[in-house]
């Protein structure tokens, strides 16, 4: 079998031209497609965010109608969550997992092609709502009923189908990763030999399979409420609008960890590499990831402390939520112990990883504060929440994606990016992102609700500062785009192992990883010598 694959492989490389990308079943090609798709959605979602910050630059309505503002906030959230962050992690998973587990490709390559090619259509369907009569969905990315059912624009049905498609894509991607990790892993690699990125993605896949069908159920109920006379979420027909929120957040909270667990994995590769030291507490990292995943399913109603839950329910969800701080803390302590008494250098990926640990932890602290149910009464639906989830999703999830890009770009392209430009880009982004989001803590505590197009005057100063930070942060992506293109076109050839301290099977491949990763499974000796944690 192995020899047959090997001889087969030598006969052909990728097909030429456009059809290579349409028909490809290669995990690297599909990973690349995912990453470019995610990046273009990031730019579109970012452009919408620029519109939001532009309108909030000063009090009064200057640029747009409130209804359009609501469309911007809604679509910004949906595009960033479903179009940018999730596909980017699937792209990283596609590229890296087969290389990391010593496999030639993903287990289900044709399905892999399909799960990617659904995405542009789903994204296109979602974006097309902007051009429809009545405008795009304007009810927030959480689309609470009945604002999203009885009171929503007609384009909502297109939004529902887009969510269905995105769900298909995610579920197929997750099944593929589980099948690859469990069936295609090198026979000599035990589960507890797997690198953490593989572990975190394996666990994330189970979250996706558990959570996405629930979302599909929620939007299907919306669809029938809107068009076929059901009343799941309509009290006048015996339904309950709060039930929508229970269903949504039963999906929505695991979703939060879907977007952060692979980030934990990425950082757990980068920090040991540039500390030149094995990852501290490997097995506790695996158990902490699994605990976070488990807890993520039983804390959903902490998003709903103000819906009128019974006090016993509120107490339970508060305690369960506070528990999440424990495994998350374990991870942070392990990363810092990995750095401790290492021999650190600060190449660009390491800068992003260290700032991830710092800024994500700030988001974790505000998360702990939000988990305290009585205090949540004052924080809920204010800019404090906006600041919190942007610290965990931008300086958490997105940060790890950028870190991963710089870290593995040499392996993807066989070339080195421009280190000094990349460092300028890092400092530009890390300063501007804090100017953008840190003042939003103050706005929220002072009482500014989220999702408002205009505000009273005591909020003017910090909104102005936040907007300026936003424009600077947005502009930093122009430089990022340049650095990536410059690397692809003009980069100097990279070594097979461009980072001195890097360990992992992917670094044993050619400088630009060959089209099929491992045609013969790596040996036990190789797996042990490339292990990050022993």
């Amino acid at each position, binding site marked *: 079998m192995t020899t047959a694959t090997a001889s087969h492989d030598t006969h052909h490389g990728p097909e030429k031209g456009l059809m290579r990308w349409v028909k490809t079943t290669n995990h690297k090609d599909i990973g690349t497609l995912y990453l470019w798709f995610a990046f273009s959605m990031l730019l579109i979602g970012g452009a919408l965010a620029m519109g939001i910050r532009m309108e909030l630059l*000063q009090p009064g309505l200057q640029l747009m*109608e409130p209804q359009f503002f609501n469309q911007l906030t809604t679509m910004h959230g949906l595009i960033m969550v479903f179009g940018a962050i999730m596909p980017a992690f699937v792209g990283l998973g596609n590229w890296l997992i087969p290389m990391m587990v010593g496999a030639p490709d993903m287990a289900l390559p044709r399905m892999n092609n399909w799960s990617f090619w659904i995405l542009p259509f789903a994204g296109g369907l979602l974006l097309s709502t902007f051009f429809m009569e*009545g405008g795009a969905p*304007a*009810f927030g990315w959480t689309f*609470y009923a*009945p*604002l999203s059912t009885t*009171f929503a624009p007609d384009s909502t049905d297109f939004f529902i189908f887009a969510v269905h498609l995105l769900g298909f894509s995610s579920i197929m991607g997750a099944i593929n990763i589980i099948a690859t990790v469990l069936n295609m892993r090198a026979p000599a690699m035990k589960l507890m030999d797997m690198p953490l990125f593989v572990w975190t993605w394996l666990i994330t896949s189970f979250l996706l399979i558990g959570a996405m069908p629930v979302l599909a159920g929620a939007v299907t109920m919306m669809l029938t409420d809107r068009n076929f006379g059901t009343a799941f979420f309509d*009290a006048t027909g015996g339904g309950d*609008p*709060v039930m929508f929120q229970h269903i949504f957040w039963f999906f929505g909270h695991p979703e939060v960890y879907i977007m952060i667990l692979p980030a934990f994995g990425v950082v757990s590769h980068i920090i040991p590499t540039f500390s*030149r*030291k094995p990852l*501290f*507490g490997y*097995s506790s990292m695996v158990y902490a990831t699994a605990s976070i995943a488990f807890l993520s399913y039983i804390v959903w109603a902490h998003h709903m402390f103000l*819906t*009128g839950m019974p*006090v016993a329910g*509120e107490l339970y969800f*508060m305690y369960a939520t*506070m*528990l999440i701080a*424990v495994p998350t*803390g*374990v991870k942070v*302590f392990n990363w*810092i112990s990995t*750095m401790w*008494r*290492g*021999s*650190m*250098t600060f190449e660009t990926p390491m800068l992003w990883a*260290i700032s991830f640990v710092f800024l994500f*932890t*700030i988001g974790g602290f505000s998360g702990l*504060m939000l988990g*305290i149910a*009585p*205090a949540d*009464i*004052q924080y809920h*639906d204010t800019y404090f929440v906006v600041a919190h989830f942007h610290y965990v999703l931008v300086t958490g999830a997105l940060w790890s994606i950028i870190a991963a890009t710089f870290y593995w770009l040499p392996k993807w392209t066989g070339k080195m990016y421009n280190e000094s430009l990349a460092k300028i880009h890092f400092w530009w982004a890390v300063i501007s992102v804090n100017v953008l989001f840190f003042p939003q803590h*103050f706005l929220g505590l*002072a*009482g500014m*609700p989220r*999702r408002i197009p*205009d*505000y009273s*005057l*005591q*909020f*003017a*100063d910090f909104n*102005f500062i936040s907007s300026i930070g936003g424009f600077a942060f947005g502009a930093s992506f122009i430089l990022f785009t340049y650095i990536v293109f410059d690397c692809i076109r003009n980069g100097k050839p990279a070594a097979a192992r461009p980072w001195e301290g890097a360990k992992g099977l992917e670094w044993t491949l050619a400088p630009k990883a060959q089209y099929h990763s491992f045609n013969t499974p790596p040996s036990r000796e190789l797996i042990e010598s490339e292990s990050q*944690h*022993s």
Partner: protein
Amino acid sequence: MGKLSKVIASSIALLSTAVFSEYGLNMTEGVTSISHDIYDLHMMVFWVCVVIAAIVFGAMFYSVFAHRKSKGAVAAQFHESTKAEILWTLVPVVILVGMAIPASKTLIDLEDTSKAEMTVKVTGHQWKWQYDYPKEGISFISNLAKTSKDSVASDIDNLSNENYKTGATSVDNYLLEVDKRLVLPVDTSIRFLITSNDVIHNWWVLDFGVKQDANPGFINDAWAKVDKIGTYRGQCAELCGKDHGFMPIVVDVVSKADYAKWVEKEQASAAAAIASATQVWSKADLMSKGKKVYESNCAGCHKMDGSGMPPIFPAIKDSAIANGIASEHMAIVLHGKAGMPTFKMLGDADLASVITYERNAFGNTGSVVQPSDVKSAR
């Protein structure tokens, strides 16, 4: 781009002149026992986080500065310690239990509305609040004040008259003022029953520590005992559609004697309104009252000139309904239709005058509707 540069230029001008009132960095302590408790919890958790952050980030940055290759650091190879893992699992658990105990106490207290001495029912509407005092028989609607409404340059074409420059900053309590305030007595335990007529709203007064979802079809409760006379402001805190940012809450907390006077006055005017609804009104009276009712209740969607925002908010000008049969017009206003909420909470005289106004303003030529017509159509 012209507009944009204007916006930026005026922003810089705004910043350099000290036109802003105070700006907050922290949560308010508020004026109720609950808001004090919440503030204390907030500060406790905040300081615990600061201490943990100082230790964790301190260790991290020490390591970043001391253990770098450029300083000749040689990497140690330790990578496991069960003792350390157990330690940094148990210590956070102990800290969390320490936080959970006071948090639970506050939570149980603020959910217990059984000690209330009086009740106010709060109903959210797109995009205004309705207040009912069931025992006192008082009921009214509270809209965003006209001064704020007028200074929102909601129409982009209005930018040419430079409204946006002077608008927001020339109004007192921009976006935080209403046409009729909620009035409550001081030192009285008040139960709020909170519900909604259309979508989910959220009634939030920061200084009271009261923030509760208003769910259509369900009633939530909350309570407050305000210990300081004064005016307190809040906003809707759940996205409820187009004008979510424009439905503020203003509460006057007054002495018990002043409150009693206010109740008497409101009851008298309620009685007068009922009496006037039994009379036949002149068209001129209906039109002038109707214009006011229209501006505070209808113009948000159907616009001052009745042109609406089709297709979501249809035009009233030249509409078949406003020029057609009065009973159909009344049915829509009373019971709503699709995105249009019901307005049955308005009095007969208000509804008759606004319907008459809609049927005869903007060049429409519909019939006159009397309060008695509305009453029988209910």
